[in-house]
C-alpha cells in the first residue's frame, strides 16, 4: 500500500503542480507506469463491455444476451493463446515492432475472424437473421472452446499460467501505447453506439415494427454487430476474457433507470467502469502480493448477485 499523502504528492509532481524533485520518485514511477495505466484500462474496458452487453441485449431483444455471445471474445482469446504457445515460431519472420505487440494484435484479428464467420453464417437473403446468429454464436463458442483446450493441452507449464490469465482476464498492463490504441477503438465505438439509443428502443418492439417506424434495420444491425465486435475484440486483446460485466451491469442499471436506452447506455458505461475498477482493486489486494484473475472476481461476485436479482426481482428483470 502507498499512503494517500504520497499518492497525492506524486500526482502533483506528475501533473507539474509541484516540483518533481520534492516527490518520491519510486512512488511516482509506480503510479505513472503501473497504477494509472491500470485504472485507465479498467475504466475503458468496463465501460466498453457494459455498453456492448446492453446493445447486445437490445439487438437480440433478449435480456440474457451478452457480448460473448457472438463468439468474438472466445475467438480473440484463442488468437492470443495460439500466439502465446506457438508465438516463438511465428515471430521469427516478423518485424520487431509487430512482435512486441503480437499477442494483442493476433487476439484482435481472431475476434474479427469470429465476427466474419458469424456474419456470414447468419446472413439469409441479405438480412442478418438474429436467431441464427445466436445459434451460430453458441456453436462457434464451443468450437473455439475445444481449440482453446487443445492449445492449453500442448502448452508447457509457463505458457499455461499465461493462458489462465487470458481466459480469466487481467488488467495488468504497463504499456501506454497499447492503452492508447485500444482506447482509440473502444471509446469512439461506444460513443457511436449511444447514438443508436432510440433505434434500439424501437427495435425492442420487433424488427418489422422498427422498420415501419422508419429505421434502416439491416444497416443498424450490421453497424452495431461490427461495433460490438470491435469493442469486445479490443477488450479481450488488452485484458483477456472478463465475464459477467456485459451481462450483469445492464441489468443492474436497468433496474434503476428503466429500459430507455437514451439513459441506459451512458449509465451502463459509467457503472461498468466503476464496477471493473472496484473488482480490480479486489483482484490486486485480496491475496497480495499475488494477484487473482479479475474474471474470477467478477464471476464470483456477479454470479450470486445475479441469482439474487433473478429470484428477488424476476418481474423487473423482464424475464
Amino acid at each position, binding site marked *: 500500500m502507498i499512503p494517500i499523502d504520497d499518492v497525492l504528492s506524486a500526482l502533483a509532481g506528475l501533473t507539474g503542480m509541484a516540483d518533481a524533485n520534492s516527490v518520491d520518485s519510486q512512488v511516482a514511477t509506480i503510479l505513472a507506469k503501473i497504477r494509472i495505466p491500470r485504472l485507465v484500462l479498467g475504466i475503458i474496458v468496463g465501460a466498453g463491455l457494459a455498453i456492448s452487453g446492453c446493445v447486445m441485449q437490445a439487438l437480440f*431483444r*433478449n*435480456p440474457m444476451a451478452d457480448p460473448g455471445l457472438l463468439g468474438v471474445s472466445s475467438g480473440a482469446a484463442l488468437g492470443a493463446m495460439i500466439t502465446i504457445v506457438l508465438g516463438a515460431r511465428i515471430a521469427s519472420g516478423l518485424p520487431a515492432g509487430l512482435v512486441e505487440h503480437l499477442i494483442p494484435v493476433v487476439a484482435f484479428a481472431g475476434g474479427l475472424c469470429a465476427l466474419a464467420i458469424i456474419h456470414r453464417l447468419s446472413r439469409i437473403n441479405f438480412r442478418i437473421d438474429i436467431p441464427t446468429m445466436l445459434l451460430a454464436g453458441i456453436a462457434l463458442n464451443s468450437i473455439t472452446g475445444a481449440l482453446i483446450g487443445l492449445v492449453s493441452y500442448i502448452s508447457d507449464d509457463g505458457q499455461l499460467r499465461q493462458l489462465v490469465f487470458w481466459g480469466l482476464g487481467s488488467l495488468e498492463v504497463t504499456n501506454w501505447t497499447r492503452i492508447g490504441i485500444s482506447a482509440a477503438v473502444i471509446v469512439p465505438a461506444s460513443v457511436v453506439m449511444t447514438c443508436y439509443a*432510440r433505434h434500439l*428502443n*424501437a427495435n*425492442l*418492439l*420487433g424488427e*418489422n*415494427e422498427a*422498420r*415501419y*417506424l*422508419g*429505421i*434502416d434495420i439491416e444497416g443498424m444491425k450490421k453497424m452495431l454487430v461490427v461495433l460490438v465486435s470491435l469493442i469486445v475484440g479490443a477488450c479481450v486483446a488488452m485484458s483477456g476474457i472478463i465475464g459477467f460485466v456485459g451481462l450483469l451491469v445492464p441489468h443492474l442499471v436497468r433496474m434503476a433507470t*428503466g*429500459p*430507455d436506452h437514451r439513459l441506459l447506455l451512458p449509465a451502463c458505461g459509467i457503472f461498468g467502469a466503476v464496477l471493473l475498477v472496484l473488482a480490480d482493486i479486489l483482484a490486486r489486494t485480496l491475496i497480495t502480493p499475488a494477484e487473482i484473475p479479475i474474471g474470477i472476481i467478477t464471476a464470483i461476485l456477479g454470479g450470486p448477485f445475479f441469482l439474487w436479482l433473478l429470484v428477488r426481482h424476476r*418481474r*423487473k428483470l*423482464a424475464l
Partner: protein
Amino acid sequence: MYCAQRLSVRIDSKIILENLDAEFQSGEFCAILGPNGAGKTSLLRALTGDLPLLDGSVRFAGRDLHEWPIRDIARVRGVLPQISSLDFPFTVRDVIEMGRFPHRSTKVYNRQVVEETAEKCDCAHLLDRSFLHLSGGEQQRVQIARVLAQIWDDDAAGPRFLLLDEPVSALDLSHQYRIMQMLYELTRKRDIGVVCVLHNLNLAAQSVNRCLILDEGRLIADGKPSEVFTEETISNVFDIDIWIRQHPENPEIPYLIPKLEGQAGQKKSSLL
C-alpha cells in the same frame, strides 16, 4: 393513393395472392375479410412492402413503394402487425412516444400527441403504468395509440395511411366497437386512410365503408358492406350457411347470423 396492381405472391411454390388489383383512398375505412389462409395478412404485408412480389407492383402516393425513403414513408404510414411483443418494462407513455421516432418534432409537442392518441384509444389512464403489467387488450390499445401517434400530424407531406392486422382481436366487446368508431372518425375528419384485416364480419359491417373479401388469394368481392354481404357470397367463401338481416335502425347495415345445426335455443325440426 395506395395502389396494388396485378399482385401475385408465392411462398414455397404455393400461390398466396393471384393477380390481385386493389386501390385504397385516404379518407376511406376499408376492411379485408376472408377465411383463414385466404391471403389477408399477405395482402397487407404486400402493401407494406415486406413481401417479395412474384408479379405486380405496389404504389403509394404515385411512387413505387421501393422508391420511398424508409424514413419519409414512416412519417405518413403506420403499420401494426398481428402479433407485437415487447418484453422490456417500458411505460405506456414511452411505448406510444416511440411512434414519434420518424418525426423531428419537439418534446413538448410529442408529449401532447401521446396524450391525445392515448385518449383516443382509451389508455390515458394507463400512461404511467408498465407496458408489461397490462392485459392483452390494453396492450393492443397502446399499440394502436403508438401507430396513431406516428401519423398524427395534420400537416403531413402526403396522404396518411394506417395498415392494421386484426387490430381489435384482443379487445372486449365495447372496446372493439369504440376503437372501430374512433378509426372511422379519423378517416372522416382527418382524411386518413385505414386498411385493416378483420375477422368479425358484423363488426366490419357496422364500422367500415368498404370491404374486400378474399378467398384463396383472389379478390371475391369489393364494395360497401351492404353490397358485398350477400348470403351466397358469404356462404360460399366461409363455407357456412348464414342469414343476412338488416340492422334494426339502419337499413344500410347488414348483419349476419350463422345457421348451425342443433344450435342451442333452436327448435328441433318438426319431423322429429
